[in-house]
């Protein structure tokens, strides 16, 4: 052990040690010289004699030094030093290699982290597979809807289920009582739009989580009369409270009520719903009565918007403004069926099912999309990694070829095969290691860049928990090792297989062994075709999407909504709304304004309903979207009324109910002809039926053009436009929860409009929600396409660049190795075209083969991206043709330069050179 430490110390102070040894030996020699002189030898002779007797001083020193070395470790260090020196001597190659690996590994680390967070382990809790939630399936006239939100009554039943190990409840992400909170933490620090989540005290306990800081909720916190407490999300803590540990114990005001901060939630926990933004605050459920955002009168019908066919009274709790809850429970493996049976009995309903929590963390429809998208992405980055490795293998092989004579000489002089193998392998390993380290920086940078995007399905990348540094390190190291083996093996084998006699002879001409390199070029070309094709698809589809006719004029259009502010009242009736609209219309910069939903914008109020047509309830393939619009809605949107008329000021409460339909509705409901004067019935939601007269039918007074309602690539569905003025009794309830939706057309000057809207809202006792322009909404909708475009664009650019470099390298190598052959051909009278043909045959065979394989792969892979395309097929032949042509042209360009070099070969000089 001591010996080991001394060795270690030695290797640290090696140069000092060497100098000491040299001094010591020199003293020795001079003492001997003195002795000789004393014996009567002349000084010169004495010096010479002393030197002679000393023998080889350097060798002696090296022998002495060897005593201290670690053997294997030291030889390895030596290898690394040599390899590093060789790499530094060729900076371009090294830089290209390291950069390639950094990008390839970095992209893989990033995508792996996405896949890991979304698909593999979406919930970072101990044993996530033991967690379940309750899903309610309802079926109404052939329309099946599933939801995770429960009423209070049902939640209480679930909480009492004895075969579940632990059951916790929380306010559902869509519940308004916990949204739009205002938090004040001392003077001057006021945070608006904070998302809260009311939870039972055992919430974190059931999930198996401990707070990152402070304490968890206790049973005493979750009482009606408890002192209000709050737990911060990790993100809120870092972003708003600077990550200071003394935040625990401080008092903040939540919606004006003082509450003590008791802790900070774990960093990796961002709620259990990917479709919703992660909560900023966690609050005890029973304190909701005091801490919840005021959502207006609780006794009206607003809850029905979210609760389908539940009876109205069930929605409301005497103790809490929270109306929609979700449940999370831990169940022992194997006991899930028993728990399910108990639940079915207790709720007397078959529509309630226990489902694994991780299965529900994304909205049902978007999960498949997301899976497909991430598979596509993962495949793409894995291929990039492959192509990068292929390229580097090619480059290193070419270098080994160049060094063949050197290696042969060394082998002839006695360098062992193992030694040569080790040398090449070390070089590759070193490159891979440098690439891996750089990849971590690339991955960090990519993750930051990505956090602005949303994944298909509406999952914001930024809402996902961040991957642990150790994990990304592990992935990077794994890929690094793979890269080292892949890029190092072939050259190392070849170096080790160096046959001196043959190779030294071969120096004077002969065939070039490039079979491996040519296969690699073919692989690269095929991958490249696939990438460029997909990237081009995304670019074209994006262009198509942006050019889509949405059915109305979208220039300078924006939406805004005003909701009731905490503690104030606004009369949500027709005159008040109309007056508000009039004030909005007079804002400088506003050309027109109306009340109604802005199509294709998030939060648009268009919602599906089942209807009857001419008194007869029809089984419709889809529910009909209904939109409540004010009189000038159609003129504001510049949505043309094709037949009949729009709403006017005669369409008021008391007058006959009127409606407009879109073209698709007209065609579907009345295929025979004129829809005007026909009637549509709107059966009220079941909870509203009791005590109300059946809603009268509306008669159709006009037909408007189809518009895109939810997505740019949707096929038009029936839409029914109702007059806001005629449905005030209904809308009053909606408005207090959903707010007044405005569509506003600016005249180009956009700045100042938000501020004006805000002041109008606050003067009227309302608060303004986000103002969104239609372009922003469309951007939001197109996030997956943009993400795909950015990602595939980058990857395909990289793949193309790599392939071009690879082909250039291959051709250069062929030209260099066949200089003599070419010279002889020229001397024998071959003309230029023959030379070029001979050269290109070797290059273009792999290129064309690769292109053919790539085309086939792209063609069959097209269906993977079909889902993300707008107005273009996933297997669009013209795009494929263009992509293939691009790559073949690039390959030709890459081959051109070295080929010209071949043509400049002077036969006489070449032949003389040997």
């Amino acid at each position, binding site marked *: 052990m001591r010996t080991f430490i*001394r060795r270690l110390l030695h290797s640290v102070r090696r140069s000092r040690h060497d100098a000491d040894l040299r001094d010591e030996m020199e003293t020795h020699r001079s*003492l*001997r010289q*003195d002795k000789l002189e004393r014996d009567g030898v002349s000084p010169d002779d004495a010096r010479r004699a002393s030197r002679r007797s000393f023998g080889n001083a350097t060798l002696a020193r090296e022998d002495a030094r060897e005593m201290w070395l670690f053997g294997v470790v030291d030889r390895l260090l030596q290898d690394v030093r040599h390899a590093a020196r060789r790499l530094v001597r060729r900076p371009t190659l090294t830089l290209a290699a390291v950069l390639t690996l950094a990008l390839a590994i970095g992209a893989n680390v990033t995508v792996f982290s996405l896949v890991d967070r979304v698909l593999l382990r979406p919930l970072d809790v101990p044993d996530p597979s033991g967690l379940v939630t309750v899903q309610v399936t309802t079926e109404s006239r052939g329309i099946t809807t599933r939801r995770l939100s429960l009423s209070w009554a049902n939640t209480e039943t679930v909480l009492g289920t004895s075969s579940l190990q632990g059951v916790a409840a929380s306010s559902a992400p869509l519940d308004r009582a916990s949204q739009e909170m205002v938090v004040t933490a001392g003077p001057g620090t006021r945070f608006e739009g904070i998302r809260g989540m009311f939870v039972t005290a055992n919430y974190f306990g059931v999930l198996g989580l401990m707070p990152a800081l402070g304490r968890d909720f206790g049973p005493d916190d979750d009482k009606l009369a408890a002192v209000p407490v709050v737990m911060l999300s990790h993100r809120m803590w870092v972003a708003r409270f600077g990550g200071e540990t003394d935040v625990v114990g401080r008092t903040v005001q939540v919606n004006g009520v003082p509450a003590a901060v008791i802790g900070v939630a774990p960093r990796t926990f961002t709620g259990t719903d990917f479709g919703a933004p992660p909560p900023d605050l966690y609050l005890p459920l029973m304190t909701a009565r005091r801490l919840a955002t005021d959502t207006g009168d609780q006794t009206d019908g607003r809850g029905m918007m979210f609760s389908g066919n539940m009876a109205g009274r069930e929605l409301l709790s005497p103790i809490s403004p929270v109306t929609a809850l979700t449940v999370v429970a831990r169940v022992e493996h194997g006991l899930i069926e028993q728990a399910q049976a108990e639940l079915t009995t207790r709720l007397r309903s078959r529509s309630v099912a226990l489902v694994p929590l991780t299965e529900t963390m994304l909205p049902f429809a978007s999960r498949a999309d997301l899976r497909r998208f991430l598979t596509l992405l993962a495949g793409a980055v894995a291929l990039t990694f492959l192509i990068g490795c292929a390229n580097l293998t090619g480059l290193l092989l070419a270098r080994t070829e160049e060094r063949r004579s050197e290696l042969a000489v060394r082998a002839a002089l006695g360098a062992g095969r193992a030694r040569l193998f080790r040398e090449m392998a070390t070089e590759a390993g070193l490159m891979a290691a440098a690439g891996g380290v750089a990849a971590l920086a690339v991955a960090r940078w990519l993750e930051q860049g990505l956090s602005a995007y949303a994944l298909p399905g509406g999952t914001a990348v930024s809402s996902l928990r961040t991957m642990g540094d150790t994990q990304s390190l592990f992935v990077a190291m794994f890929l690094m090792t793979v890269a080292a083996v892949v890029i190092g093996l072939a050259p190392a084998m070849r170096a080790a297989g160096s046959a001196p006699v043959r190779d030294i002879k071969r120096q004077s001409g002969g065939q070039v062994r490039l079979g491996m390199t040519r296969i690699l070029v073919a692989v690269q070309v095929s991958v490249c075709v696939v990438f460029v094709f997909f990237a081009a698809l995304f670019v074209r589809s994006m262009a198509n999407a942006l050019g889509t006719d949405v059915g109305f004029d979208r220039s300078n259009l924006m939406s805004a909504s005003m909701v009731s502010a905490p503690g104030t009242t606004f009369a949500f009736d027709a005159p008040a709304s109309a007056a508000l609209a009039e004030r909005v219309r007079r804002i400088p910069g506003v050309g027109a304004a109306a009340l109604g939903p802005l199509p294709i914008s998030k939060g648009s109020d268009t919602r599906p309903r089942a209807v009857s047509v001419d008194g007869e309830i029809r089984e419709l393939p889809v529910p009909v979207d209904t939109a409540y619009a004010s009189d000038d809605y159609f003129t504001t949107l510049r949505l043309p009324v094709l037949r009949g008329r729009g709403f006017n000021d005669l369409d008021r409460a008391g007058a006959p109910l009127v409606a407009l339909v879109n073209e698709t509705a007209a065609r579907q409901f009345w295929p025979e002809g004129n829809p005007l004067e026909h009637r549509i019935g709107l059966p009220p939601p079941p909870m509203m039926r009791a005590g109300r007269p059946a809603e009268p039918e509306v008669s159709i007074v006009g037909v408007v053009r189809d518009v895109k309602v939810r997505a740019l690539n949707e096929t038009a569905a029936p839409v029914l436009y109702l007059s806001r003025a005629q449905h005030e009794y209904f809308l009053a309830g909606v408005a207090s929860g959903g707010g007044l939706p405005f569509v506003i057309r600016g005249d180009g000057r956009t700045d100042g409009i938000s501020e004006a809207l805000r002041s109008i809202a606050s003067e009227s006792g309302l608060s303004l929600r986000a103002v969104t322009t239609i372009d922003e909404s469309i951007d939001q909708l197109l996030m997956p396409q943009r993400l795909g475009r950015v990602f595939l664009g980058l990857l395909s650019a990289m793949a193309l660049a790599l392939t071009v470099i690879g082909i250039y390298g291959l051709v250069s190598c062929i030209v260099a190795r066949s200089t003599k052959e070419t010279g002889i051909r020229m001397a024998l009278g071959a003309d230029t075209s023959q030379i070029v043909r001979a050269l290109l045959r070797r290059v273009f065979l792999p290129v064309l083969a690769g292109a053919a394989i790539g085309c086939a792969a792209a063609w069959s892979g097209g269906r993977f991206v079909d889902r993300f395309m707008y107005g273009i097929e996933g297997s669009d032949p013209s795009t494929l043709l263009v992509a293939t042509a691009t790559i073949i042209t690039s390959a030709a360009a890459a081959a051109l330069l070295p080929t010209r070099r071949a043509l400049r070969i002077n036969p006489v000089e070449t032949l003389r050179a040997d």
Partner: protein
Amino acid sequence: MGLTNTPSDLLPGTLELLILKAVSHGAKHGYGIVEHLRLASEDVLQVGESALYPALQRLLLNGWVKGEWGTSENNRRARYYTLTPAGRRQLTAERAEFDRMVGAIQGVLRTI
């Protein structure tokens, strides 16, 4: 008179034993050790530097001797080696082993 330049001329480990013995009576530098061995063996053992210094490094590494820097007779920088307690133990042990070895060899040679 051949130069006993390589340790192989001696029994394995003998050179180390001789060096340990040489420095056991007081600090000596490399040249001093060589001279001591030469004089003590009446010019039979002439240790070459190329054998001496690796051996010294080995002894240093094992912690049997320690070196201190001082000035040589001709005013140069020289390392003076002294025996450590571990070195003294090693000397005793090696000496016993050597005696046993020599005894064994002599026993063989004495047979007719």
